[in-house]
């Protein structure tokens, strides 16, 4: 019996390692075969982007791009956790346009269930998600996307992967009416592994000379070169989020490496780590959860929204709508 269990564990381990091994090849294949074609200038789009703003249109003062966590399947945001979060931000703040149609785990913004050779497999997984094997199905999706986060965080592949994702974000920004010439601030809001992917994209987005900010919601991030280009990075974390301890293992985040990009940015005040309360990474009582009320009477989601709003308003990237009260959601602490 023990032998059989060990055999199954060995097979699972080999499958996981092989999946991790294969993860960068999608990125490398994209670079070797597709990136050059995609990089060609689209003159029509460029001309449109240079056009004056249509009369009567009020341009947003900043653009917030949401970058999903590793549980994501497609560019569409999750209707249960992510959409209410973004809707609440839009309800609470003025002057900020929200862009959310971004799938950060594919460099062509294609979800898992459509338009790829493995779509049939992922559709099967989605069906499984509704069965009693739902937990296992979600683990497979998380694992697949976690490997993309690792690709982004790896200095060998990161520059390529981040270029692809930055293009996806850029396309979506242009689609949302972003005018490159106006250089309005771009704020990336990345949840979990999405924060690392967003951070990687900052390098290329900042090359457009727009100020680029990052709000990391329980982000799992390495000390990416883009840390040097981010205008400000707010790292919001819950005190019960154990993924944060795991992120400290990444070499770029080692606290004793005083001259690392990350530690230098912290010392310069460009990275602020904020403890926003006893929130977990996933499930009830997590950042996006509305199921558990915390000691201060707010849900996890309300706490998160307040912290995001505080950061955006405090930096002058948005204004509070009339009637929306200022919050005191964060306890800042040095790291």
């Amino acid at each position, binding site marked *: 019996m023990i032998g059989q269990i060990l055999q199954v564990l060995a097979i699972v381990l080999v499958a996981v390692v092989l999946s991790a091994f294969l*993860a960068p090849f999608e990125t490398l294949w994209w670079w070797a075969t597709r990136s050059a074609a995609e990089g060609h*200038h689209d003159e029509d789009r460029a001309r449109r982007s240079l056009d004056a703003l249509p009369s009567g249109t009020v341009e947003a003062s900043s653009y917030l791009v949401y970058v999903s966590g590793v549980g994501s399947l497609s560019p569409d945001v999750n209707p249960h956790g992510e959409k209410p979060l973004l809707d609440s931000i839009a309800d609470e703040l003025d002057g900020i346009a929200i862009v959310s149609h971004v799938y950060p785990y594919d460099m062509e913004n294609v979800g898992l269930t459509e338009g790829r050779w493995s779509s049939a497999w992922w559709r099967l997984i989605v069906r499984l998600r509704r069965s009693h094997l739902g937990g296992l199905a979600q683990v497979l999706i998380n694992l697949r996307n976690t490997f993309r986060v690792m690709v982004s965080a790896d*200095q060998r592949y990161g520059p390529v992967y981040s270029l692809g994702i930055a293009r996806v974000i850029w396309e979506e920004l242009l689609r949302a009416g972003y005018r490159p010439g106006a*250089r309005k601030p771009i704020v990336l809001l990345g949840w979990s592994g999405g924060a690392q992917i967003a951070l990687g994209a900052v390098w290329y987005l900042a090359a457009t000379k727009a100020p680029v900010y990052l709000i990391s919601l329980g982000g799992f991030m390495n000390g990416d070169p883009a840390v040097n280009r981010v205008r400000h990075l707010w790292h919001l974390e819950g005190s019960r989020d154990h993924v944060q301890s795991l992120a400290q293992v990444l070499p770029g985040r080692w606290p004793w490496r005083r001259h690392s990009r990350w530690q230098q940015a912290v010392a310069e005040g460009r990275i602020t780590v904020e403890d926003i309360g006893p929130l977990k990474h996933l499930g009830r009582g997590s950042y996006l959860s509305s199921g558990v009320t915390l000691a201060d009477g707010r849900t996890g989601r309300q706490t998160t929204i307040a912290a995001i709003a505080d950061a955006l308003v405090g930096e002058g990237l948005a204004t509070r709508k009339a009637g929306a009260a200022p919050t005191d959601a964060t306890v800042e602490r040095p790291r």
Partner: protein
Amino acid sequence: MPWWFSLVEFVTRTLNAWGQAVTLHPGVAATLDDPGTWATGIAVAAVAGVSLMVGRSVVLAINRVRGPGLVYALVFSMLTSALYFVAQGLIVWGLGQILLDTDVPATAMARVVLLSSAPLWFGFLTAVPLLGSVFDKALSLWSLLALWRITSDAYATSGWLSGGIALAAFGLTALLSSLLRPLVARARDTFWRRSTGRSLHASAAFLLAAADIDGSEADINGPDALIDPVAPAQPPIPTPATTADPVAPPHPRPAPAVDPGPQS
């Protein structure tokens, strides 16, 4: 005997030798007296070279190496892997001569030490993101242990002495390799540049300076950066004042400094 039978026999013999080496089997150096095992040793080292090349395939991908270029990289990796372990075998033989005064022939030792490359058949795992360097170090340690086993068997001497010889040979080969690496890299880069007309990039880091996301759209007075991700950064192109006209076409795309095709 049909040719395929010889092939099957060769593959079986190679797999057996590989299996003995990776499991640190005491009989791994039993082929020391059989000159016919050169092919087996070279095959083990060559597969290790291919696997290591797959592990470092990011370099091939970012340089868009295809066709003949891929074959060249493959042969180069196999050859360098075999040469590395032959050199290691000769160092083990030299140390054995100095310390133990043995009569093991140099060629026999080089042949059998080729088998210490067996763990590097898993060299492809160095491609695993974030954990690649962990696999790299683990495989190096495994290869050192295989070398220790082979040295111990070949010289029939104490574990500590053979361990010392193996460690010294391992270190000396690594030192020799690091000394020769710049020369080999220069020769490889020159060959590549003459064959393709392009520079060979050693890592993807060049993208951080050279690539951009339609950055030219950001500046209606001139380009901020390049659109083509393969071309290196270029100075801004002087643009006429009329470019600022919102309905004017965007500035012309700067020509890449190097011709990106045909790819090899």
